[in-house]
């Protein structure tokens, strides 16, 4: 798999099916990499295999990834995705953080840069190590 430099995820805390009296949970709305919107197949598979719970409903899966019952679970997912896709790092932002960032930015290039810098950033240390070690082996 070709290396990805970074993944950016935007999430929200919402009640996806209020008419069914469901609970609110965290959902990933968008996943990007440096080339644009991330291909969801790996993320969907990861969620289905390791993060799916009783809360999950089939219908929503096509549009959002989730539900995640806590930000910890969401962070775990994001980090595992980063490892699965051999990305250098992953940056997670809530929609509130995304909105604040958009409001304060003047140019699209600054906004693009800040999406990566200003989120909750988790680095893929394993990839860094492999990169370092590959100089010797």
């Amino acid at each position: 798999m070709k290396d990805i430099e970074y993944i950016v995820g935007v999430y929200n805390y919402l009640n996806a099916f209020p008419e069914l009296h469901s609970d609110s949970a965290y959902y990933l709305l968008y996943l990007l990499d440096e080339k644009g919107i991330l291909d969801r197949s790996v993320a969907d598979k990861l969620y289905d295999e390791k993060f799916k719970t009783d809360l999950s409903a089939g219908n929503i899966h096509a549009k959002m990834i989730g539900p995640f019952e806590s930000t910890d679970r969401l962070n775990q997912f994001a980090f595992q995705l980063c490892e699965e896709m051999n990305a250098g790092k992953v940056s997670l932002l809530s929609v509130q953080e995304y909105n604040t960032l958009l409001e304060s930015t003047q140019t699209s290039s600054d906004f693009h840069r800040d999406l990566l810098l200003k989120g909750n950033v988790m680095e893929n240390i394993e990839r860094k190590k492999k990169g370092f070690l590959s100089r010797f082996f």
Partner: protein
Amino acid sequence: MTLTTPVPRDLDTVFPGENWFFYWKTSASLWRTKLQEFPGTRIIIPINWSFHSETGDQFDFEEHRPETNLKKLYEIATEVGKQVVFFLPLTPAPFLPNGGLPHLLARGLALNNEQMAYGIIDADENLIKIYSFFDPRVFEAFDKFVKRLGQYFATNKIPADVWGIRCGYFKDGFFRSFLEDTSKTFEQAFSRFLQGKKAEDQTLSPIEEKQYAFEFNKTVQDLYATNARENIGSNFEGALDVAFLGASTAKFLKRLSGTISTVDYTSEIYESLAKDIIPSSVLISHRLKKGVLSRELNDLVANSYLPARLSANSAYEYEDIAVFSPLSFFKVYEKIDGVSSMFQSWEQLHLWNYLQKNFGWSYKIISNDTLKLHENKNPYQEHIHLFHGHDVDRTLFNFILKTFMNGGRVILNRSGLSEDYSKRLETFFLENSLNVEKVSFKTQIQNIALGEGRLVLIDGDQFQEMDSSEYEDFWKNIVETFSLVHVPIQNVEGIDYYWRTRPSSANELKFEEIRRLSLYNPTSYRKKIRMNLNKNFVVYKVLDEINVIVQTYPNELEVELSPEGSVIIDFGVFS
């Protein structure tokens, strides 16, 4: 064969696409030169509210800057032979800074239904933010602006048409307006609205709240439009929905990385045309619009669909033999009321997959708003109408029966049909001694005929577990009973294509109609398509060949399109 549609040579940012003219982006002293060089005969001038008012209560219509002199602009355009149409945004406009709002009014960012702030990148790579139109100060300022604008038009006797435009974008196949807002500004306004709608201690269910939110959105949208209509007066022609290509959040995020390409835009063109929404490419840079995307926009929008919409207050005038109108075999009804999407959808029944595979974009999607647009038309094209039972109300029920009794063809999915309307249908059949044929094919189907009219009832809730191909087989069998005159295209994946139609002229009387097929290859691969021409079709003309090889054989047509290739083929059609 020469080009059928003129291609603008000027790639100036003042001409961002589809004959729009951004008058504020150039000096007034250059208006004449630029308009003279523009090859089109019609100019669309969007009115830039914030350009004429920085504060919201002081206005500039030629008082200070010459570039605000709309009267002079109109006169120059007319002198150089251009017909002028003004577009007045009735919602936030994604092609203007702050969505068009005077900067003092740009306070609270509007949020989409994902609670994310709208972000747009325009053709000059500027970042555009959208602000809430639910702020009462914005509405008051808009009211003052359109009053002043109306007075300006009346005093200066500017006779040009003014169309209100509701700006939006496509997301997941649905048109969303930039007016939609979930911010605190909206919440405050909505809560005031709800106070008038419910008792103080009443708790609303989530469905009721969604319905009220939709109603409130619609009310505010209508208020802006009514305001404009009343103040602009006789110049005001009506309101149009305009979908800006590439304006969704997904496309915005893709554009940030600089990897967006032609294929990212083209499906939105066809989705817009299917829903009678005007597509606009003004946010896309000319660099990206070179080649096949530009041809699609010119052929299908700037030089055909858009002029037709601006010339009539309702759908096309079918009798004009010079004008090709979109070919559609189906009119599929989807109610838009904020809650209908929770019930069984055409997507769940895999109808769109079937239609697109077999008919391309030759269908129309109509809603409660556009139903009237499609009513009372002398149908040059005979359509198959499709409805969901859960959408049926008195208006729709009467429309269905009227269509059926007038020889029309209707497919009604009984899912969600109320007991009352179910009984009324049965009574109708009994009173008119109509024979109801029943058959079981993947679900229960009833077929009723009355002269040329046909009514097919399907039980959407009774389908067995089926995959996509089984649903497609179901639709194929149902639609084949209607004997549509159509020729499918083979190997067409990746190719954009669009069918149009017109009546035959006096010297084409051997044909019943002329159908025009426009083919475009937006991919970087060579593509070859084939068509088996049945006895109803003959190749009549081949036009605007660019990087294609067209070969005709007895009863067969083969077209090889190179990357960025395109061609137009006219077929004579016999019945």
